[in-house]
């Protein structure tokens, strides 16, 4: 088992936002203040839970078919690949998504935005990636919604993603955005990622090839998890 010593490189520090980000007010009392303690990688860090087919329901991949009728809003396909930092696809890994409905309201008791709930939309989906690391959801485009962070604060439309990869150190929770959103410049969560190229990796791209005629637009969102090597990042060379 000792051969599993440190196969993962350090995290991509330029990609990930700092915990302490005053523009996002909820960080004020929640972001730890002390420096983090370095943890070397052993079995507990380079392995992770195996979450398989038994976690999936038959319609978990199609958020438009989980109720008696179709939800309101624009039907879309969201697809992409889950890769590690070396470009290797990550097969059979759990991808979970959750989102607001087309009106910008979550089916959650804590969401007090005065926009309608949709009886035909739960806003939650789950798939496993295929052998090539690919995944595909059918859903509706979520609406933007207001929040209390600052005066006239609105979140850009987004879909939450939760991924495990194959190792504890690859665990990622992120948000997928849509191209060209006018709210990007005003959103402190999006802008907590300080590097513009890194921010752009959270924005899906419109995909005409996967768009299904007469039926649904497609967006592509590839997700890169931490890689098992410490070679330099591509744009540092």
């Amino acid at each position, binding site marked *: 088992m*000792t051969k599993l010593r440190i196969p993962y*490189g350090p995290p991509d520090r330029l*990609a990930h*936002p700092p*915990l302490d980000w005053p523009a*996002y007010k*909820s*960080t*004020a*009392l*929640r*972001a*730890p*203040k*002390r420096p*983090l*303690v*370095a*943890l*070397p*990688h*052993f*079995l*507990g860090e380079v*392995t992770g*839970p*195996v979450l398989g087919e038994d976690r999936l329901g038959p319609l978990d991949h199609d958020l438009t078919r989980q109720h008696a009728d179709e939800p309101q809003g624009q039907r879309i396909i969201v697809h992409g690949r889950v890769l590690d*930092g*070396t*470009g290797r696809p990550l097969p059979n890994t759990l991808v*979970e*998504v*959750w989102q*607001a409905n087309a009106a910008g309201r*979550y*089916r*959650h008791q804590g969401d007090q935005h005065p926009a309608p709930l949709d009886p035909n939309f739960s*806003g*939650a989906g789950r798939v496993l990636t295929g052998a090539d690391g690919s995944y595909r959801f059918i859903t509706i485009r979520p609406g933007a919604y207001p929040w209390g962070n600052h005066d006239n604060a609105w979140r850009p439309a987004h879909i*939450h993603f939760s991924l495990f990869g194959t190792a504890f150190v690859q*665990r990622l*929770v*992120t948000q997928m955005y849509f191209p060209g959103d006018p709210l990007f410049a005003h959103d402190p969560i*999006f802008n*907590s*990622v300080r590097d513009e*190229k*890194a*921010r752009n990796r*959270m924005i899906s791209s419109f995909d005409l090839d996967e768009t299904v005629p007469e039926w649904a637009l497609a967006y592509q969102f590839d*997700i*890169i*998890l931490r*890689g098992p*090597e410490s*070679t*330099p*990042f*591509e744009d540092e*060379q």
Partner: protein
Amino acid sequence: MRLRETPTQTIGPFFAIMLDWPDGCYAVPEGTEGAIWLRGTLYDGAGAPIPDGLLEIWQAGADPRFARCRTDPDGGYRFLTTRPVALPGPTGDQAPHIQLSVFARGLIDRVVTRAYLADDGPFDDDAILSTVDPRVRGTLVAQPDGPDAYKFDIHLQGADETVFFDV
């Protein structure tokens, strides 16, 4: 060549519509021989309980354990799992521990900590714990709390701030 990573973003306040699993807090079913409860409260920097957090436990090894639990309205959480086992480390085995990830609105990234069970101590020679400032090492030790149960409060900030690891 390395591909650049997709950045992390906060889990936000509404994750429970997806991530609140029916078997959430149970890494093992009730009645499992030798099972223990790990339980406690998640606090913010003002000492207020956090009612919208999500915790995940991970115990690697031949018989791995994983579970996730969202905090209740009083910031409380509880996991039913088995006693952690020793795993290889830099200088022989590491002391047994339960690895935890904490997610919440206001945490842009998860934070990672470890619960060591007090009666597995002392941990003076442990390769990981010996790198932690002795004045705050106690924040990583879960104390016995009734039969087959341990209490492990997590403070994201403040005088009692828990030690978090950079993984």
